[in-house]
């Protein structure tokens, strides 16, 4: 089984354009991810000073941007951007999966819905970590990618609902009991904390910083990946498409140099911001408890 390291070496030997590239994410999906991570960074950056309002850096940051009035404004603005992105995604799912009855949205190898293979892959992967078995052959979305997706999906509903409940508290109080207004802050801040800690540590490492992808997996920015990368990371999908004769339809143009460089700048910026926020969060959290 060719390893990525080898693949990378081979691709370095071959000229960039000679290597076949395959489409993984559509333009719309990439834009959605961009909207998601930039608004998430904004929400994290403005939410953390609030969660740890007694810490020195929170007060310094608040002072720097014109006090909490400014922070709150920006937090709400990012929340609206993320809400719109979420609604667009929901509309896409409903249109494709329910109205057009597209197969593979809710069922099968291309779906985000977890299936029995994911459970087997999880345990297989754990066995492989410990040297007790072969590496599972992943399909289009591996179990940790599905977890990322559903964590964000659940997170957006929970954080979004609790956030709007605080934003429009008197309105929500018409159908929520009074203690729920206390609970939404606890939920919002704990779920936000979980999202921040998860994305800036687990997601970053799983997707970008692990040796196979280090320092960054650009596929979510460029939309395409090399044949070797495809084969190594998702052999099952590659074989399936090949067997179905659909592989050729997925061939795409190699990304331009500017596209790669631009993706790197954006991606590294996001990762650095995320890691800084992670350090601040951990330091404030540990000092608090």
């Amino acid at each position, binding site marked *: 089984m060719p390893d990525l390291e080898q693949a990378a070496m081979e691709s370095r030997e071959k000229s960039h354009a000679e290597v076949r590239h395959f489409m993984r994410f559509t333009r719309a999906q990439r834009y959605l991810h961009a909207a998601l991570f930039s608004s998430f960074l904004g929400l994290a950056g403005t939410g953390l000073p609030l969660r740890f309002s007694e810490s020195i850096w929170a007060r310094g940051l608040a002072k720097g941007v*014109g006090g909490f009035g400014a922070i*709150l404004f920006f937090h709400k603005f990012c929340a609206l951007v993320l809400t719109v992105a979420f609604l667009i995604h929901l509309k896409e799912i409903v249109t494709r999966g329910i109205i057009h009855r597209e197969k593979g949205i809710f069922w099968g190898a291309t779906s985000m819905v977890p299936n029995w293979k994911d459970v087997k892959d999880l345990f297989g*992967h754990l066995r492989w970590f*410990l040297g007790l078995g072969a590496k599972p052959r992943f399909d289009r979305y591996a179990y940790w990618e599905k977890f990322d997706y559903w964590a964000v999906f659940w997170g957006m509903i929970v954080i979004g609902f609790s956030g709007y409940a605080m934003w429009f508290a008197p309105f929500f109080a018409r159908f929520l009991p009074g*203690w729920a207004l206390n609970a939404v802050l606890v*939920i919002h801040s704990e779920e936000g*904390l*979980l999202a921040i800690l998860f994305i800036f540590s687990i997601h970053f490492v799983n997707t970008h910083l692990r040796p196979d992808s280090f320092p960054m997996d650009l596929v979510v920015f460029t939309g395409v990946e090399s044949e070797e990368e495809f084969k190594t990371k998702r052999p099952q999908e590659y074989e399936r498409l090949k067997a179905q004769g659909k592989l050729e339809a997925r061939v795409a143009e190699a990304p331009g140099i500017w596209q790669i460089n631009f993706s790197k700048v954006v991606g590294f910026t996001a990762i650095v911001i995320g890691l800084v926020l992670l350090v601040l969060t951990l330091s404030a959290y540990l000092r608090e408890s």
Partner: protein
Amino acid sequence: MKTASSIALVLGALLAVAVPRAVWGQTDCLSCHADASLQDASGKSVGVDAHTFGASIHGSLKCGDCHATIKDYPHPDQITPVKCESCHADEAAGLAGSVHSLKSEHPCTSCHGDAHAIFPKDDARSAVYPLNVPRTCGACHGNDAMAKKHGLPNVYPMYIDSIHGFALSKEGLLVAANCQSCHGSHHILSHKDPLSPTYKTNIPKTCGSCHAGITANYMGGVHGKAVAAGDLKAPVCSDCHTAHAILQPTADAFRMQSTPICGSCHKEKLSTYRDTFHSQLGSLGGYVETARCWDCHGAHDVLPASDPNSPIAKANLVATCGKCHTGANLSFVQYQPHANARNRKLNPALYFVRLFMNLLLAGTLGFFVIHTLLWLIRSRYDQIKKKSTEGDNHA
């Protein structure tokens, strides 16, 4: 010496034409002392400005009325100090029992200024004219070395930047509190002395001499009643507003600094308030509208929730919360501004919500941290192994 005296006498006779009628009878003394450059043996000026003295509150007196020991000319070089108390007995008695009793450090002139230029206290030229009082007291009480020596705060800069100081120095308000409005003038006592107007239990009355309405409100609230009952732990005006650096209570700085003051006694309430959105927003500044203690509890007439007049009485909550939260209803006001998610007995629902969220957080992160660490180790191991086999192949 003799020639000098006769010259002075001639000069004095000439001057007599020019001196005001009020000091007409003092030409003998002024024939020498009108000379502004005249000094005694120790180099101290003994010149007297006849015009100023004549206009001063003591202008109708004769030199000998105060300098009673001087009967003849020439008089001795060393003269007995003037005894103001021979006329001003009450003031002298007050001073003798005050913090300024040490006469060598606090002669009358240390506050009233030049003995020959003393004006009534409603005259703008007086050192104790209301608008001049802070500067007069500040000559000593604005001095770091002096403050340190006596273990006192350096109060002048605090006062002058306070709301009272601004009213006085910027607006020229005669009714603005100056030093002596609160401390008195001659019989100034330490704030530790129960007779002092600045003794804790006397402060409401002292401030109330101007702020009568507020004091009446305060005396009706729990703090006022506690103080009246002799509870020295209950706050008086200066505990929240400070004594000298008093700020406009609606000012950002005051709203930012005052919550911890309430919290210095109400520790548990401050801690639970800190957990809420009100505090989280409020403590970051620039958004000072978020509710502070007194926005809900009232400032001066703080009353327990059981009192129907309290803003936090059940029947008043909709109105109280509604001050900021337009549209607040009965369900909305069940919100607990001091909920404690760590207390299972007081807030069971919140306790379990927090517990669930914490378990979710710890469980998710715990699993994935282990998962990802193992993954990292395994991937790196494979990478190194591959490299070494490739190295072998090349060799």
